């Protein structure tokens, strides 16, 4: 009988409480470590949580150029926002900032007016809250927050943030802004 008792843990009194706390304490670092080396499985049809190969190639091909990426909103606030549709944007920006040639800055424009002003000294692009500004080779491009979600042919809102950032980066690294020609046709009556 005594042998059997020895095998069991004495869970009376304070020991039970300590053991309960200990169990919790063991699992907290496990969660922290896994969060640090997190891995995601993107099951969405458009793979909106994973950077497109085209974007990765574009950034890697321009590894010698420093691309400045400004997000005029606190990135962490995007994650904790109740709007689930903003999560793809959070993941796009989070993956972009991992690149060595991308200098990522996220800030609240209301709290850092000097930086906001420095992004547009001539008042051309007029940056607003939640906009994304990309700067490289002396060219500045803005991705407006209003364009991050676009309606598809069926009228359903789709995330278009990555494509817009991708094309803005492509324009900036090319070093030249696209030229838009306006053609005026005059028709003379006989």
């Amino acid at each position, binding site marked *: 009988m005594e042998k059997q008792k020895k095998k069991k*843990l*004495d*869970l*009376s009194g304070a020991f*039970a409480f300590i*053991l*309960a706390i200990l*169990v*919790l304490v063991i*699992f907290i670092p*496990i*969660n922290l470590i*896994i*969060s640090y080396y*997190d*891995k*995601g*499985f*993107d*099951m*969405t*049809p458009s793979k909106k*949580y994973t950077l497109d190969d085209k974007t990765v190639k574009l950034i890697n091909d321009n590894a010698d150029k420093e691309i400045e990426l400004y997000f005029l909103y606190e990135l962490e606030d995007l*994650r*904790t926002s*109740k709007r*689930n549709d903003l*999560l793809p944007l959070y*993941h796009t920006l989070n993956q972009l900032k991992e690149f060595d040639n991308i200098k990522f800055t996220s800030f609240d424009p209301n709290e850092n007016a000097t930086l906001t002003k420095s992004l547009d000294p001539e008042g051309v692009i007029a940056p607003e809250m939640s906009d994304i500004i990309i700067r490289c080779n002396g060219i500045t491009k803005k991705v407006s927050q209003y364009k991050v979600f676009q309606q598809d042919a*069926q*009228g*359903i809102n789709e995330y278009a943030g990555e494509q817009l950032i991708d094309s803005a980066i492509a324009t900036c690294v090319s070093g030249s802004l696209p030229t838009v020609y306006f053609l005026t046709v005059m028709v003379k009556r006989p």
Partner: protein
Amino acid sequence: MFPIYKKELQSFFYTPFAYAMAMLFMLLFSLSFSTGIAKLDNSHTWAFSFTEMFYSVILYFIFLLPILTMRTFADERKNGTEVLLMTSPVSTGRIVIAKFLANITVYLFMLAGTVIFPIITAIKGEVVMSQLICAYIGIFFWGAMYIALGMLISAFTENSIIAAIIGEVVMFALLFVDDFANTPFISQYPAIKKFLYAFAAQPRFSYFSEGFIRLSDLTFFLSAIIVLLIWTYIVIEKRRWNRG
């Protein structure tokens, strides 16, 4: 362990309990489904999100899951069958796991009934299957965590009604941890906000419902289930030692 699991299942399925729960769950789910259809506009495209439906269902969870788990240990104490269970050759750990698995089986039975809604949608239109499967995985883990929590609360008391009420209060509080963390007052203290946010299940479910499975979210739910089951084990084992 299997006889206890079988006995628990019988207590659910040989009585109208499991069927009533499943019916109530389906009724609530169909309410969300019909609301989703009613909200559709007059355009040619009819689109609604199952994700939103799952969100409404989670609110119903808080009322249904404590009812499912309230009897797990509380009734054993009330009916005096706890002594029989404690003196049985099966270890406490196995008793806890058997009861947990029985509750999970009923829960899966409840969830299985809801599959009819995506099937109806698929017959009449198109369903994004990968996203739907992820949402089901998410709701399963969230429910399993709440079942483990309900079992722990049930282990503390001998009155099943009190266990259900406490369960509902605790689950309700847990559901809104992230909202509380986002309040302007808590937002003043980023460290506290981050700490509270780490315990919030709703943002983790958001990823599942959006079709993105993260290892950290799976670990969170599994850890929470394991911790709560171990705590239940400690509570039962402590009572056994106190009895002598």
